[in-house]
Every structure is written in C-alpha cells, then in structure tokens.
C-alpha cells in the first residue's frame, strides 16, 4: 500500500487575490481512501483552499495532482459538498441526486441503481419527489451528501457541511458519513473549524496557520472507530490540536 502513488499530491500551492496573499506555498499528500480532516483558525481562508484544489479558483502557482495527473473536474470523478446549501431548488430530491450522474453521462441503468442506493442510505426514499423548499435543514444536507456520493467519487471535498446543525443531528450525520466512507472507500478531505469534529472523523489531521495560510503540521489519528468524545485519549489528541490553533 505504501509505495502506491498518493491520491492527491499538492506542491507549493499559492493563491493571490490581486496582491493579497491568501494561500502561501502549501505542500502535502493524501493517500488513497484516507479520511483527512483539515482544521484551522477562524478566517484562515479554508474555502479558498478547497476551491483552489478543484480549480474553481485558478491557483496563482503550484501543482495539484490527482492520481498523478493535474486535477481536472471534467476528467476526474471529484465531488464537493459546500458549506452553503447547494441543492437545486427547481429539482426534486431524486433529480438533485441524479444531477452529477447526468453531467457525467452515466448509463441509465447504473445511474438509477446509484440513485436508489443513495436515497436508501440517507433515508430519503420517501421524499424522492419533494422539492428542497419542503425539506428541513438536515434533510437538505443529506441531499447534498447523497448527490456527492452518487457519482462514486474517487475524491470528496467537504467544507464544514454540519456547521449549522445542532449537536444531536451533527453526531448522527457524522456517523452516517463514516459508514458511507467505509463502504465506498472514497478519499475524503473534510475541512472544519470544530476541533472535536475533526478528531472524531479523521484518520489524519492537517492543521493550517492563519492568513496567509500554510500547513502548520499533519498529525496521525490512531484512535479506533467509533470514537467516544469524552474518552481519555480522544481528549488528549483534542487538546494537542487545540493548542496548535488556539487564538481565543
């Protein structure tokens, strides 16, 4: 497993808006099927970071390789769940989930199977013909997650998807995400402000500095799944990450 080339390789990624330096020479690697959490202080330009990774923002300098070739959403199978609610209000739940598959011109039989599977996994089968305006916040987030996983992505980016949910719902969706990640073996880059969430989900934690953002350090997270947020080792790792970030 070790000598295999990394799923994602980023070399001196830099991003400037005009002369304002936002991303300052980031270098890191992510292995196949790994769950990497990225955590940084408030306002550390994390959305710019993820958008540059998928070329939504053109990086000023640096190389981003997925499976060894420069990243290109048209060729590679990448999905991105945004912090803002991004389900299409004019499509039903089912049509929303099918959206990615249609863009990627997936054959109908396979597409239908994926959509049915995803509807079942996120528990929205009963709501397939509902429109987003009729759904609660947590159901909307489930639609976005189902849509992202439906295309069986090799790389999944998530920008603090559970930021607005209350604690019970957040833990529930986090458990669902881990189940989906284990089942599909996707490589996940999950960015968040919430340190407890990062320690709860990750195999590896990458800590970013404040603006201009660069990689402070990368920590391994050896804790066995499922994790207990009040257990001894969990809290030790959490304190370690907190001390690297604490600005408050």
């Amino acid at each position, binding site marked *: 497993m070790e000598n295999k080339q990394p799923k994602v390789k980023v070399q001196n990624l830099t991003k400037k808006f005009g002369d304002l330096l936002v991303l300052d020479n980031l270098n890191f690697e992510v292995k196949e099927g790994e769950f990497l959490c990225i955590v940084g202080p408030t306002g550390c330009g994390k959305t710019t970071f993820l958008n540059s990774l998928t070329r*939504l923002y053109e990086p000023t300098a640096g190389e981003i390789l997925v499976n060894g070739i420069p990243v290109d*959403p048209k060729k590679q199978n990448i999905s991105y769940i945004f912090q803002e609610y991004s389900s299409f209000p*004019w499509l039903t739940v089912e049509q929303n989930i099918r959206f990615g598959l249609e*863009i990627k011109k997936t054959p109908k039989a396979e597409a239908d199977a994926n959509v049915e599977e995803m509807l079942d996994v996120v528990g929205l089968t009963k709501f397939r013909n509902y429109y987003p305006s009729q759904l609660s916040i947590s159901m909307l987030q489930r639609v976005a997650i189902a849509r992202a996983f439906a295309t069986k992505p090799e790389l999944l980016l998530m920008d603090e998807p559970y930021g607005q949910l209350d604690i019970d719902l957040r833990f529930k969706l986090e458990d669902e995400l881990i189940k989906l990640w284990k089942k599909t073996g996707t490589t996940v880059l999950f960015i968040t402000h919430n340190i407890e969430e990062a320690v709860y989900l990750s195999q590896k934690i990458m800590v970013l500095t404040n603006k201009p953002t660069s990689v402070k350090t990368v920590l391994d997270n050896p804790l066995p799944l499922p994790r207990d947020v009040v257990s001894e080792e969990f809290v030790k790792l959490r304190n370690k990450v907190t001390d690297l970030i604490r600005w408050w």
Partner: protein
Amino acid sequence: MKDKKKVRINKYLFLSVFSICVGIFIWWLVTDGLGIFRSNALPSPVKVAESFVKKWYETKPDGATLLQHLGASLQVALGGYVIGAVVGIPLGIFMAWNDKVDMCVRPVFDLVRTIPGIAWTSVMVTLVGIGFMSKALVIFISAMVAMVINSYSGIKQTKTVHLWVGQTFGASNWELLTKVAIPSALPMIFTGLDVALGSAWTTLVAAELLASTKGLGFMIQQARGIFRLDIVIVGMIVIAVTGAILSSVIQFIGRKLIKGGRS
C-alpha cells in the same frame, strides 16, 4: 382565538365593499342625481354601463364595435410582444452569461432603456408610415427592452454555489448555462414576460392615441373628440381589465412551469 380573526376579516371585507358602493353612489349623485356635472364633463355610472353594453355590438360612433377595437389592439400588442420576447430573452441571457459582451453592450443598453417606447413611434411612422407595422415595431422595442432587463438580472442572480456544483461535476460551459443558470433564472424571466406585457400594452394604447385607424386607443381618442366621455371611460375600463387578465394569464403559466415553489 380562530373565529375572532375570521370575524375581523369579513369586517374589513364588508368595509371594502361598502366603500366601493359609497364611491359609486357619490359618482351617481354628482352626475344624474344633482346634475352638478353634465355628461360631457363626467358621464353618470348608468350612462357608462349602458354604453358599455351597447358598444360591444354597435359600430357607432367610430365605425367599429368594442370587440373589433379590442381585437385590433390585441393583434398589434401580442404580435410585437411575442417577437420582442423571442428576441429579448436570448439576448438578455447572452449578455449576462459572458462578461466581455456584458461590459461592451451594457452602457449602450442603459442608454436605450431610458427611452420610452412611445418615443419610437415618430421614428417608425416616418420610416414605415402610420398603420400596423409602425405600431408593431414600437411595441417590439418596448417589450424586448423589458425582456432583456429581466432575463439579464435573472442570469446574474444565479447563486455561485450552484455554478460551483456544476463545475465540480465537470459540466461544460453550455451545460452550466442550460442546466443551472437558466432554470435558476426562470422566475425572473417570467417576471420579465409579465412586465414586458404591461409595457407592450401601455405603449400600444399610446401609439393608438397618436396615430391609428382602429383599436382601443383610437376609440377613446375619437370619443374624446366628440365629447362621448362615456365611451372614453368604457375604453379605459376595457384597457385596464384586458391588461389585468393578460398579466394573470402569464403569472398562471409561470406558476405551472416554475418548479420548486419558487415562482
């Protein structure tokens, strides 16, 4: 709690109906009742109602029935309107979708849009003479301008996050436009269709007042010439009612086509 609210609502409903009746009564009082205003200054509601009924089939005094005038007006208005929409919507979308075109065309468009549709009548009449064509062209311009404005802002208001979702799935520029931007702009495009219809209808009436041989505008202008104010008021009522009906038809179609409870 609930029934108290219901009582309050019909109380206000009753008040509205009552206020209309009072209005009509005063109108009748000052005309037929006390004869303060002669009918060439303000015709009584009875006279207006009477000519409203008669005008539908009578050709007096302007040589065409109300129906024929209405038909003539609708034909011109809807003709110019449809072409204006067919040209205006793609132009607005095209202008909004690529920035270079947007920046070039925008200032010219801002200049043209402040020119009221009616101003073009003189140009068109001089170019193609009085008659159907000049009025249709004027209405085409006013409807097209309204359509471009609304489809333009509809596309510009597409949420960036929706475009990002499309881009990350690898959608081409054309797919982003057709599968994300246009569906998101649909409600605004229908607002445009509604506004354009209103401006087409208003411009038509103005054009007919200026120079025409048939149509509602022509009818009320003629009637004013011979002091038949009752026909003028009948004409105004028909203009208002037709405008309202056309607008509600567009809104109805909009509610049917726009999915997701967003219209």
